């Protein structure tokens, strides 16, 4: 099977700061791939290089079979980016935002595509309100809906649930699972381990400019020693203490 993304020996520095030292990984078609790392590990830098926004210093990067450096236009035809901050136009309504992207993707029926997406993402009622009035979760849904226009083969989601409340997070997870169900390759960055565990079929951990481990969740679990039984002294809770005192009082009588 051809890989959707192939990265080999990727390097990138900002002046003195060596952000990416030697990054290798591959993403299979139709998979959800999660890139884990702390803040400042270089996750966004990798996303920017893969989406042709930033030039790499060294290494080989192909997306959908196209080299990002020599064929950026073909890469852009194949992908869609949902950046770290919901890039929606707040002055425009939800509908206008979607129609705008559909026009830029040169679709023949921008209005129909927009109506479908509004429906699918539960934004029909809010469609004609300005995006500035949307909640964080709605804004993120609109943002992802904008990225789906034109059915790109690979979708990049850079920390899609950062700043969302638990409800919003679960909504976004549902959307991502649906996407992969339709055969779209999803490249996800996150700092939440639970998110990677919930969604991704393959996980890579970026640390100090290199991928230190990568594999399926089951493979990663094998890297750790097997679960062992430990005996831990159980401290009484306030409830235990309360119940004990009440009980003693009764015995006194």
């Amino acid at each position, binding site marked *: 099977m051809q890989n959707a993304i192939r990265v080999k020996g990727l390097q990138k520095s900002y002046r003195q700061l060596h952000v990416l030292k030697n990054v290798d990984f591959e993403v299979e078609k139709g998979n959800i791939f999660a890139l884990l790392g702390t803040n400042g590990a270089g996750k966004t830098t990798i996303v920017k290089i893969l989406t042709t*926004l930033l030039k790499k210093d060294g290494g080989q990067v192909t997306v959908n079979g196209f080299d990002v450096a020599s*064929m950026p236009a073909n890469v852009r035809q194949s992908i869609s980016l949902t*950046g*770290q901050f*919901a890039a929606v136009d707040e002055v*425009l309504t939800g509908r*206008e935002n979607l129609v*705008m992207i559909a026009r*830029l*993707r040169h679709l023949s029926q921008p209005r129909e595509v927009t109506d479908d997406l509004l429906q699918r993402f539960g934004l029909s009622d809010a469609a004609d309100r300005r995006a500035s009035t949307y909640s964080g979760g709605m804004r993120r849904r609109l943002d992802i809906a904008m990225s789906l226009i034109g059915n790109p083969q690979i979708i990049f989601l850079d920390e899609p649930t950062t700043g969302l409340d638990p409800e919003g997070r679960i909504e976004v997870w549902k959307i991502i699972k649906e996407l992969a169900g339709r055969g779209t390759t999803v490249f996800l960055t996150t700092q939440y381990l639970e998110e990677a565990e919930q969604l991704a079929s393959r996980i890579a951990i970026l640390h100090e400019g290199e991928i230190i481990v990568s594999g399926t969740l089951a493979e990663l679990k094998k890297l750790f020693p097997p679960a062992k039984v430990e005996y831990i002294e159980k401290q009484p809770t306030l409830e235990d203490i309360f119940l004990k005192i009440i009980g003693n009082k009764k015995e006194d009588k």
Partner: protein
Amino acid sequence: METIKMKNYFFIDMGVMLIRSMRHVFRSLDTIITVTIMPIAMMLLFVYVLGGAIKTGTDKYVNYLLPGILLVAIANSAGYVSYRLFLDKQRGIFERFHSMPIARSAPLWGHMLTSLVSNAISLVVIILVALLMGFRSSAGFLSWLAIAGILALFTLTLTWIAAIAGLSAKSVDGAGVIAYPIHFLPLISSAFVPTTSMPAGVKAFAEHQPVTPIVETIRALLYNQPVGNQIWVALAWCITIMFCAYLFAMRVYRKRL
């Protein structure tokens, strides 16, 4: 094949960008007040309050004043260009556009086109109000065409300068700062009063800055007077500054985005 496809779409994409930022202009009461209502209020103030005391050597002060008011309106709009560009950069809108299969410069040119179109609309409104206030011109079609050309050139010049500020700013306040020096240029020129009454230092500045030759050229075209050298001085100023600002803004655009 991809590049050919993209070239065909360049103007369609620009159109989409134009519609988007025109919505920004029309939905911002603040912008409409600053670029259209303020210049009209200024025109009313100068004509009906101060105008009686200003000696310009023309029969009607509104005739003398109008070219300057038009330039004030254009100057007032420059700050909004930097503001909108800054927000697009900060909110990741440019990143979204740049990761799509559209020409990389289309988003920036969209802002430039918006500046031209929105200024054209506000200038027409201002001229209509001036007509109500008694402004009359003997200019023919060709003269009006020349005036439109000079105003468009002045607009583009200021817009490219504003683009540098908007693209390189670190904060919203920083993006807006460029507006202040631009606001002052029409005030220290022959836009409101003839330079002859000014003290020597101020007069020297007023006569050797871009706004004065532009104002004088538009005045000459409006009232069928010989344009003389002023038009070439005006064009030289605009084209030189515009070209430098364009190169610089493009450099910042490519580097930062």
